[in-house]
């Protein structure tokens, strides 16, 4: 089976995503973990690009890297004492959770290989962005409103919790 250029790109991006992801959970320095997390998010955004979901790719960069990763880096800095790298980063159950994670991965892959998944992607319509917008105000209007309320509540709640008293 010859490997097409797209598959090469996919393999490179997967290695980037998973490698950065591994470094996130293995790095001893919390700040470095946060930076590896940014790398992993970039890889995922690029995978979305490969899946021709450009709106999601850009939204991933905007929300995950621009907002969530920045928040996490901010929190690592505010809780400074924890990231000097002197203390052990993993807890008493790290060994067993590692085993559980690897077993779960094995199980998932085993199950995945049982099914014959489609190998050819179907053509994507041109105006996906407009379709997403329409979906938000027609079929998914109630979840959409609920999520907007959730965001508002989270905003107010975060300010209330973190406020200095």
């Amino acid at each position, binding site marked *: 089976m010859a490997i097409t250029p797209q598959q090469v790109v996919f393999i490179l991006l997967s290695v980037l995503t998973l490698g950065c992801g591994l470094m996130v*959970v293995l790095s001893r320095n919390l700040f470095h973990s946060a930076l590896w997390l940014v790398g992993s998010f970039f890889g995922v955004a690029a995978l979305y690009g490969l*899946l021709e979901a450009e709106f999601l790719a850009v939204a991933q960069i905007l929300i*995950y890297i621009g907002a969530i990763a920045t928040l*996490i880096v901010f929190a690592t800095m505010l809780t400074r004492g924890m990231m000097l790298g002197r203390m052990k980063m993993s807890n008493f159950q790290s060994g067993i959770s590692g085993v559980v994670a690897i077993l779960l991965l094995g199980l998932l892959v085993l199950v995945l290989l049982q099914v014959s998944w489609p190998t050819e992607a179907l053509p994507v319509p041109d105006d996906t962005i407009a379709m997403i917008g329409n979906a938000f105000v027609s079929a998914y209007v109630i979840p959409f409103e609920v*999520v907007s309320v959730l965001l508002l509540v989270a905003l107010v709640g975060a300010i209330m919790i973190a406020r200095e008293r």
Partner: protein
Amino acid sequence: MVPLSWYLIVAAALFCIGLYGALSRRNAVAVLMGIELILNAININLIAFNRYITPEEVSGQVFSIFVLAVAAAEAAVGLALIIGIYRTRDSVNLEELDLLKG
């Protein structure tokens, strides 16, 4: 073309990495990072299924946008909690946060 199963395997691997991070780390911020990885893995699955099975309906992308919004809310509240705990207890080590233990 890249077969759909490749995407699913990558997503499964990312999920397990995130699970390991969330279970094994002592620092609350690091646990949160693991959870973000898990959410990302789920989004890869949603978008891959959307692309390979029903690209003419955008439901997969719509759901992953909901996941994005919930992840943002969760990160904001979670980090606010962590900073609040750090202020009162001077630590974000999850093993030391056992006030409710009998």
